[in-house]
């Protein structure tokens, strides 16, 4: 048994221990990736729901009329009713943007994109990449200006995480 054998043996033991620790730390936990994939699969086969569509149209009209409070309430209801649909999340993001709150809009847009990647797919009619890019830029600007002075580091970190996620999705991917 030479030095390479010993080092390799040690590496294998360390890797096995790491794997056991990693797996045991996830036992019993909800696996968000599964959830995400299920949501994406649901988005692929989503059926156009006339009830949701009429709700979305109503909210759009309310946003146009600048009745943001009522629009927000109705959107929340839709989100609870249709948790696997991206459109209500997208509307919620729009409402926050209207309220000049891009930092709160970004997590909504992020969730919408997770639920339905078509929002960032130029080949589909749902593509809204430019709008999301504006939201990301405004959110970054807001963080840059120090608007979040009141927020603690963890909150800023969470904002940044969502912003960077959305930035990466906008930039594109091979998968």
């Amino acid at each position, binding site marked *: 048994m030479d030095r390479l054998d010993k080092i390799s043996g040690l590496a294998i033991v360390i890797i096995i221990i790491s794997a056991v620790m990693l797996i045991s730390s996830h036992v019993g936990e909800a696996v968000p990736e599964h959830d995400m994939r299920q949501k994406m699969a649901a988005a*692929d086969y989503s059926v156009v729901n006339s009830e949701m569509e009429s709700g979305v149209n109503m909210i759009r009209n309310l946003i146009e009329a600048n009745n943001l409070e009522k629009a927000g309430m109705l959107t929340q209801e839709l989100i609870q009713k249709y948790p696997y649909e991206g459109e209500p999340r997208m509307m919620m993001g729009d409402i926050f943007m209207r309220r000049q709150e891009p930092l709160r809009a970004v997590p909504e847009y992020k969730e919408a994109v997770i639920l339905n990647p078509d929002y960032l797919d130029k080949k589909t009619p749902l593509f809204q990449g430019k709008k999301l890019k504006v939201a990301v830029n405004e959110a970054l600007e807001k963080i840059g200006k120090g608007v979040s002075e009141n927020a603690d580091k963890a909150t800023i970190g969470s904002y940044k995480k969502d912003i960077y996620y959305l930035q*990466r999705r*906008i930039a594109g991917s091979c998968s």
Partner: protein
Amino acid sequence: MNNLSGAAAKDVCKIRPADGALGRIRNWISSLTVSSDTECYPKGLFILTGAIIGITGVMLSYWGNPANTGFCVSCFMENIAGSLGLHGNTRMQYLRPEILGFVIGSFLMSLYKKEFRATGGSSPLLRFFVGILLIIGCAVFMGCPIKMVYKIAAGDLTAWIGLGGLAAGVFIGLKFLERGFTLGKPFEQPRANALLIPLMMVLMLGALILKPGFIALSTKGAGAQYAPLYLSLLAGLGIGALAQSTGFCITGGISRLFMWGPREFTFCPKTTGLALGIGSFFLFAFAASILTGQFSLGWHGQPSSNESHLWNFFGMLIVGFGSVLIKGCPFRQLISAGQGDTDAGAAVLGMLTGAALVQNWGLGGNAAGTPFEGQVAVLFALCALFAIGLIYRRRGETYAPEFQSGLD
């Protein structure tokens, strides 16, 4: 280790002055840069190969391929696996002509140069398995070594972590080679065996053109993002042919630095050529990225990236380690399969299987990070590679004959 290089350089000398129109063009390009003692490895050809891979890759992204994905063996293998019905992700289904072109281009060039040799029998099943691991590593990093260079050239600073991982993997792999790792010497095979992979690619090309019902093609998602077929195919054929001629390989280039030291970049013609090829690839991709507006220097918000840096490092480490053990990166396996190496063919089939598993089991990295399943897969792959390294060593021996000229 240094005394290997001189003899090795002569042994692996493959490029000879050629006749015909293509040969005259090649000889002319070579005459511009080649000194008499290095005419087996014309520097011009290496620079040309790197330049073409760099420019065409960036341009294919510009013309429709996903961002920073002019060529990516792992992403494209996932597309092909999806198109053949090996996985059900409707956003990842396309018979990428670039991959088909690599193999067919290499096949045609090897026929033209009379270098098509049916060889095999060097642990093909194990190579199949390592092929699976290579694609898992690439998928976790979200790109193969070729794509890694495109990412770096486009300003993605996170890709440097991948380069670190790849170099670390190559270094570890070489330690095993240095101490007697061997998968067995390949031997001559019936010619028909070596035709299977090129034939498979030709059939897939036919399927891409004719679009029969059993082939799935994405209408949205990354699988629906592609450059015009003829451009992708032409680029694939050209690069396949050039890579067959030069032996261009990213991990091969890095391995030579570790095997024989920086001095070899001056004294070993093939090492010099590979270094020039990789350098030219990076510089031309860099220039093309800037000229086409695809350059964006930064740590955040880059295409095909995430913040799981540790896992990305390990993903590429697997690719480097595995590539050394089976004598070439995923790209090199395709080229070798095209020129008759049935062991590389087994690795290519393993890569296709790996691509299907990555999608079916959700192992690949995504914008959110490396999924739990991917992390477990990385640890499993690392463990498997170390175990393979241990099992296939001949203790007390050094480089096996098949490795004495470096990687392929």
